[in-house]
């Protein structure tokens, strides 16, 4: 197990009712920070957010919160919240802007009382700007960031041209918001200056959607019906789907060898990517017809041998038991009321071993003694 936890010694107080703020806390926790969730008496609403485990606990909350500590405390009536902030380096908060003052959570008060603290605000549209008070859920956010409009593409768009746009699975937009917020929060902490950091889930999604912004600057507006490589993509096989993408001529040549399409190898029109794309429909019809009788595993192996970039569309079971994933030990066992479950570590590591995720999820208020201790310390100080 890795001993390099880059955020060791950093203390974070997290007030999160949404995925983005909780994800920011999760990233810091798994990198070694002590993260203390402060929950309302009924527990964080994320504890009830699906998907649920067989025992009723939330798989989402398990994923986001394993290894964090939990105290029940409600500002502004509870002085213990302030006591927690005294020892904290970062406060993560997703309280809607309009509700902050009533809770004593307004940035001015926090800055005055805790001048060394990084107050990391994580809101759907940020804490500044004409839309700072707008509400948004995952579906709204993926469309506010621009990627929603551009999906689906390829085979799905071909099959269902008249359906509305389609989101990415799960909480993609909010997860991006959490990563960008954590990056901003840790960058602020790097300066050794307490400050207010205003992270926005929309901003994060606009950032990762930079391609469409640059394309616009270059004179074109991307659209889901055309935003696709003209051949390859999602290809159906006998027992599942593969992804095929050839960007370089040598990969194209490997594909032709694989398919035995010798006549195309000598076709001058197909010697570059633009020429091939112009005949994409014809090429794809051929590929789809050729691939449909293959078994996914055989086809991927044959493609790899020819240097053709291809991947199986992995289902969860493939990932949970994949040879590569097992070799890298990316999943860790966590004890829950439903028995042991697997939780993925962070997608990056600082040593050859993956980062530990923690043994269990704290019950609401499991670490209430943290407050008692802190309040007492303050009283005696």
């Amino acid at each position, binding site marked *: 197990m890795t001993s390099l936890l*880059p*955020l060791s010694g950093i203390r974070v107080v997290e007030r999160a009712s949404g995925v983005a703020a909780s994800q920011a806390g999760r990233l810091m926790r798994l*990198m070694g920070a002590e993260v203390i969730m402060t929950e309302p008496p009924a527990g964080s609403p994320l504890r009830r957010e699906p*998907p649920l*485990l067989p025992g009723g606990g939330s*798989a989402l909350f*398990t994923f*986001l919160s394993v290894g964090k500590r939990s105290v029940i405390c409600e500002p502004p009536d509870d002085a213990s919240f302030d006591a927690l902030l005294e020892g904290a380096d970062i406060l993560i908060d997703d309280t809607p802007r309009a509700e902050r003052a009533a809770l004593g959570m307004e940035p001015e008060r926090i800055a005055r009382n805790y001048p060394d603290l990084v107050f990391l605000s994580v809101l759907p549209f*940020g804490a500044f700007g*004409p839309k700072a008070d707008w509400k*948004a*859920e995952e*579906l709204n956010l993926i*469309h*506010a960031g*621009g990627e929603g*409009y551009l*999906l689906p*593409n*390829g085979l*799905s768009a071909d099959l*269902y041209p008249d359906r*509305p746009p*389609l989101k*990415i*699975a*799960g*909480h993609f937009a909010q*997860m991006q918001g959490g990563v*960008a917020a954590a990056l901003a929060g*840790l960058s*602020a902490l*790097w*300066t050794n200056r307490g*400050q*207010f*950091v*205003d992270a*926005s889930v929309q901003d994060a999604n606009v950032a*990762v959607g*930079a*391609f469409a*912004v*640059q394309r616009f600057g*270059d004179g074109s507006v991307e659209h889901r019906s055309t935003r696709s*490589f003209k051949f390859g993509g*999602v290809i*159906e096989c006998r027992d599942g789907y593969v*992804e095929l993408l050839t960007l370089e001529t040598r990969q194209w040549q490997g594909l032709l060898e694989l398919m035995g399409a010798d006549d195309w190898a000598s076709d001058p029109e197909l010697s*570059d990517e633009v020429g091939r794309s112009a005949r994409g429909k014809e090429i794809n019809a051929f590929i789809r017809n050729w691939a449909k009788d293959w078994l996914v595993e055989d086809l991927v192996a044959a493609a790899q041998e020819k240097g053709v*970039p291809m*991947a199986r569309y992995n289902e969860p*079971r493939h*990932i949970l038991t994949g*040879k*590569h994933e097992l*070799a890298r030990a990316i999943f860790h066992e966590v004890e829950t009321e439903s028995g042991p*479950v697997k939780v*993925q570590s962070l*997608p990056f590591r600082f040593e050859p071993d993956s980062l530990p995720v923690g043994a269990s999820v704290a019950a609401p208020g499991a670490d209430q003694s943290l407050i008692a201790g802190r309040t007492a310390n303050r009283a005696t100080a």
Partner: protein
Amino acid sequence: MKPLAGIRVADFTVHAAGPFCTHMLSQLGAEVIKIETALRPDIFRKSHAVYGRQGPATFDQVSSNKLSVRLNLKHPDGVALARKLVSISDVAAESFRAGVMGRLGLGYDDLRAVRNDIIMVSVSSSGQSGPDSHFAGYAPLFGAWGGLGHLSGHPDGPPVEMRHVMDHSVGMNAALATVAALHNRRRTGQGCHVDVSAREVASSLVGDALTAASAGIEVERAGNADLRRAPCGLYPTSQPDRWLSIAVSSDDEWRTLATIIGRPELGRDRRYATEMQRHANRRDLDPAIESWSVGQSGDAACERLQKAGVAAHLSWAASDIVTDPHLRARGAILDVTETDGTVRAAVGTPARFSTYDSPGITSGTPELGGDEDYVYGDLLGLDRRKIAGLIEDRAIY
């Protein structure tokens, strides 16, 4: 002063994911020196075919702010110079296939030999270890390997290909890991080798679904449906291809929405009184919302819903994003002036800081090798004759 001012990055990354990592670091204030060679320029610098059209991709966006030097890593003097550059850098970032840097003489041990506390950041498709670590990959393959592709899509349709957001998510994660490694260095005095795996980024984005699956719960493609919220979907407006997303997450919001769409009786209907009931009967509700939305101007309907406290947003194209006053006010979208005077919209820092308010991007795309006088002369202290000799010898090329 920007938060990462004073941090220097030797940037060996190419394509999309790695350069986006160093781009984020650059927007946060790091000095990023992009290392390229005319022998094989970053294919994203050249005009190349994307989606069947010849044209630039994201090079301008992710190269903004960066400095550029030429360096031939196939030449022993080029490798020596690369090591020298690393010796005065805090971070060395790369995105070749696992093992390539080592074969060039620029592996982690080589770099540590010239700078003991170097933070090396390696971004690759499948990580630095494991049986698939030699795989090359692109965004759609990361999404396929990681399960994000399988789980995205219509319930009755195929998986969905991931695009550049996948690459850039990897870059954002890599930037985060880099800053964490800097904190570690400050505390311990030690550098480290950060291993970022793109397929693991993809699977981490559906980490909750994988946890559920590990407990025997069946997780499948769900289209636009939410597992809890209803109504939740995209509704047509009076303008073609102008979709309005609405997601209701409380009983109050539901009653408000029912009133706005002119169907207050639905808000009182016991069949839809609770979240669970609305979710179970969600297919009955969508037609009522659609028959209202299809007669509405998208922007006005969205404003009205937000004003009443219902979560809504239009499905925005790039043309909406680059002109949005909110994103402009935040600096999330800004204008960049290129050296030829062209002004283009670009993406800025994805957060605001109370300690500074300067734009994330202050200079456009660097010319290939445009900063060699500064980097090789001022930073590395090579005199003009020495630089000219390296150029003549094609070590700087």
